[in-house]
């Protein structure tokens, strides 16, 4: 009798082996899938980056033809943005949102399974174009027409795969919003939510608003190419600049989709290791919301050189500069959280501190780029490449890595090797600067981006950047090793892994039970 009841009560039945992962509707399993998928994509995109850096190691063409070089720059961006950074954030969301708001799972578990399993198909299709006759997409990830309309057979496949991972993002975002708004523990009102939850809620709204715009733009490209429309071709009465407006109306919110969840992670880690509450919680929330709103009225700063009217240039310059205010508030609040704390410097904290410093440097160059008179010089040079890699690599990526180190012991119940973690941090931070800092210099000195070969005067800094890139890439193999070592070992982690950590996830066991919170906890 009693065993029957136990059987009825057992929600834990699940198929074993591969079927467990294909059919899973569990937020932790899906989170794990997302994170491993993004790590694989990170290494694929990284290999492409190394092809680029190897070719740029010295002047002259030694390894690849220019056409293939352009395929590498295009796919490196698409894979890293949509395959590595975004799925990693969704993976963190899947793992952490139910744990942090006291829910048993995500609100829409089957949708959750689907939104993940779209991704491997989308990216297999996109990467398969590399083996087509004529190769993969080569017009840059921005897909500007008329150049993108010249592409080979890869173009419709790439567009379909962008549709697919766009769909995946929208479904994921719907699920996240539904979960956060409906499944919080009793007593957790919106202004008591952990800041990571706030940043993801806002990011999810950005995704829902921005991804359909991209879908529209690329569908118009598709009909221009195959169905004789002329949305973007001047000879048919269309307008190539209109594509850029539509694309960047998606593209700028996308930039914040790629950074806001990282803000959330950093805002969680800094207080934990400072042993002090986050400074200015309310203003953090308002700052995140204002950044999100502003992101919809600054898009044309990506295209100052297209010949906009003067009034347009001034408008977009001023709105772009305005973003510095809420972003500054965030940085100041982080520093104020550290101020008079009682800090220790475990690996997640090291990555978080490096995030603040290096992301702020990326923010500074962003402010410089906002100044239109100077942007006429910076635009489309390596200065821009340096800028967005500073906000994406030591920004978004460091946020993800910090989050993984911070929560990995909770997820697995096992503690990672702290010494190796610190070595990983120092190698990564040194090489990331060696790679991207010299790019500021060659950019200012006049080297355009997206070129496979360059004039001799840019040779020295390019050689340094290439050495840095290989060092950075190899250091990430250490990260993989640390992850595998953690999973294999026996050193168990405590339930409350970090002395200063706060939040519902630390009230659960490490690893947490399959259905996280079967009974909702009460908050205050």
């Amino acid at each position, binding site marked *: 009798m009693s065993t029957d009841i136990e059987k009825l009560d057992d929600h834990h039945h699940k198929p074993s082996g591969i079927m467990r992962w294909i059919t899973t509707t569990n937020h932790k399993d899906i989170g794990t899938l997302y994170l491993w998928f993004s790590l694989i994509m990170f290494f694929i995109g990284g290999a492409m980056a190394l092809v680029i850096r190897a070719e740029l190691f010295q002047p002259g063409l030694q390894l690849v033809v220019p056409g293939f070089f352009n395929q590498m720059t295009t796919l490196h961006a698409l894979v890293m943005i949509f395959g590595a950074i975004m799925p990693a954030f969704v993976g963190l969301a899947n793992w952490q949102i139910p744990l942090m708001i006291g829910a048993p799972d995500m609100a829409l578990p089957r949708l959750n399974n689907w939104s993940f399993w779209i991704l491997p198909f989308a990216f297999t299709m996109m990467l398969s174009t590399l083996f087509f006759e004529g190769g993969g997409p080569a017009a840059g990830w921005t897909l500007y027409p008329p150049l993108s309309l010249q592409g080979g057979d890869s173009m419709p496949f790439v567009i379909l795969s962008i549709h697919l991972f766009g769909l995946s993002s929208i479904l994921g975002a719907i699920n996240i919003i539904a979960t956060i708004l409906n499944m919080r523990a009793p007593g957790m009102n919106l202004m008591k939510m952990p800041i990571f939850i706030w940043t993801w809620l806002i990011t999810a709204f950005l995704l829902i608003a921005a991804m359909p715009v991209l879908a529209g733009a690329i569908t118009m490209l598709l009909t221009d190419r195959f169905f004789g429309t002329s949305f973007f071709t001047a000879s048919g009465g269309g307008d190539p600049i209109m594509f850029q407006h539509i694309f960047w109306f998606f593209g700028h919110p996308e930039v914040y989709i790629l950074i806001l969840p990282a803000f959330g992670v950093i805002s969680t880690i800094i207080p934990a290791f400072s042993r002090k509450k986050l400074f200015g919680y309310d203003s953090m929330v308002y700052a995140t919301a204002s950044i999100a709103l502003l992101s919809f009225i600054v898009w044309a700063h990506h295209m100052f050189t297209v010949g906009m009217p003067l009034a347009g240039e001034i408008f977009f310059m001023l709105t772009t500069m305005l973003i510095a205010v809420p972003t500054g508030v965030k940085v*100041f609040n982080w520093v104020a959280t550290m101020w008079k704390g*009682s*800090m220790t410097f475990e690996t997640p904290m090291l990555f978080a501190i490096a995030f603040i410093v290096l992301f702020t440097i990326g923010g500074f160059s962003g402010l410089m780029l906002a100044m239109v008179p100077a942007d006429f010089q910076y635009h489309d040079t390596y200065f821009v490449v340096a800028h967005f890699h500073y906000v994406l690599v030591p920004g978004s990526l460091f946020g993800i890595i910090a989050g993984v180190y911070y929560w990995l012991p909770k997820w697995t119940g096992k503690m990672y090797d702290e010494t190796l973690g610190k070595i990983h941090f120092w190698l990564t931070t040194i090489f990331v600067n060696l790679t991207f800092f010299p790019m500021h210099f060659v950019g200012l000195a006049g080297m*355009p981006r997206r070129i496979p070969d*360059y004039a001799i005067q840019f040779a020295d800094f390019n050689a340094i950047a290439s050495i840095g890139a290989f060092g950075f890439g190899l250091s990430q193999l250490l990260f993989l090793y640390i992850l595998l070592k953690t999973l294999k070992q026996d050193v168990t982690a405590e339930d409350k892994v970090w002395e200063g950590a706060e939040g519902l996830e630390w009230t659960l066991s490490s690893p947490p039970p399959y259905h996280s919170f079967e009974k909702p906890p009460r908050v205050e």
Partner: protein
Amino acid sequence: MKVFTIIAATLSPSLASADWETNMPIGVTPTSEIAYDIHMLIFYITVVIGILVFGAMLYSIIYHRKSIGAKPAQFHESTKVEIIWTVIPFIILVGMAIPATKALILMEDTRDSEITLKVTGYQWMWQYEYLEDDVSFFSKIDDESNKARQLNSGIDVNQVKNYLRNVDNIVVLPTNTKIRILLTANDVIHAWWVPELGGKKDAIPGYINELWVDIKKPGIYRGQCAELCGKDHGFMPIVVQAVSKTEYHKWVSIQQNNKVAKNK
């Protein structure tokens, strides 16, 4: 000894061309000088902000660590402080926006130009048309660079003079003259950019964009296409030679005579 000479010979061109240039060129036109001034202004502002923020962080990291017995304080908000660090950056931004807007208005003022140069981008060359003087020609990468830049060409690119920054037909422009440059393209989007002459502008099919230069110093200025335009995007150099007005007029008449001779 012989070995040494060979090593020296191999190293010397790269040493001679070793160029650790780290900043934007001031350039030779009013617009390039404006861009440089705005660039340096905002650079110094960000340096000061950076020193303050990172300084505070570093101080905190050194003195507020658990290992030296720091006890965490309890404060976690201060409306006053938060308003201060919202308002002060805003004021700094206004201070930057005013000179930037003024500079921008000046840069976009293409009125009262004396001559007009129409530039058309093609995959992968430029066409230049001097609208007043009826001179027109195409300009593409020079043969020497073009041979050297092929995959595994076997040519040491360090030995090629102005590798990738040399063309067959140079654009000649007069100094101390306000020149309006009209930009368009015939296939895909390109961007015409010579850093020392100021900013770039896109050359877009179906559009005519405007740019102006007023070159203050004679000399040869090099640049290249700055908007991804296909496989040979990296091999679309621009070379402008600025000469005095008299020399310019001489050059124009030679071009016109050549054209007449050709047509015969």
